[in-house]
């Protein structure tokens, strides 16, 4: 799940718990506007806060990082000049944007 936008998840967790934004905020000792900002994607909570949100919604979960590191790809990048690395990254970002994929 990590690396994905958290906003829809926080919204789902709160709704599953039958809480209003204000009620969830009270449980977390924060403000309703902070919860609103998380759910709208305006702000992103830290991992520790995410764990607290899960708990406040009566849920239990494990926050894990699941990332495959391709060292061959890293070595390929290191063989390029910084200018080439930047151009490559930006080009991929543009292609993803054209395809409607948020990078």
């Amino acid at each position: 799940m990590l690396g994905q936008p958290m906003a829809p998840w926080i919204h789902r967790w709160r709704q599953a718990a039958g809480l209003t934004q204000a009620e969830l905020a009270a449980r977390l000792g924060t403000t309703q506007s902070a919860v609103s900002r998380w759910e709208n994607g305006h702000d992103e909570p830290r991992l520790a806060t995410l764990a607290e949100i899960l708990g406040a919604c009566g849920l239990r979960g494990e926050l894990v990082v699941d990332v495959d590191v391709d060292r061959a790809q890293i070595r390929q990048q290191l063989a390029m000049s910084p200018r080439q690395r930047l151009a490559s990254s930006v080009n991929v970002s543009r292609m993803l944007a054209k395809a409607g994929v948020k990078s």
Partner: protein
Amino acid sequence: MLQPLDPDCLFASLHGHGVGYVLIGGMAAVLHGSPTVTNDADIVPDPHPDNLARLSAALVDLAARIRTVDDPEGIRFDPHPALMASMAMLNLTTRCGNLDLAFSPAGIEDYAELSGRAVSFDLDGTPVMVASLDDVIGSKEAADRPRDRAALPVLYALREEIERER
């Protein structure tokens, strides 16, 4: 107004206006060799008032607007140096793509120290000060958002590969 990222355009404007800054975040990681995709530039501006005045002029040149989720066109604002001196973070959309200004980024307490450890990259004649890979990693560790945590394994591996090549 949503413009594709054009780093050359962005850096040329900042350089042309004499703005002192250090590039951090995903684009800094890419320049160091991270095989990741970046669609914005994160910079830490030198907080000196004279530099904020130069940054203000650059932001006018870049037609910078405040970026929000709800309004892709961005919101008009006056990039007055006094405003920027009071901000922690500004997410902007510009004619050269998205630009995030981090005035007090996580894990970085002092601009002078960040700048002192930064590395200068020459992008076709435009010098770009890029945070050291250790500072990029430290900043992501301190921010500790899910996307930062997800980026860290690649950055740790990158640091090992760079050390291995030395």
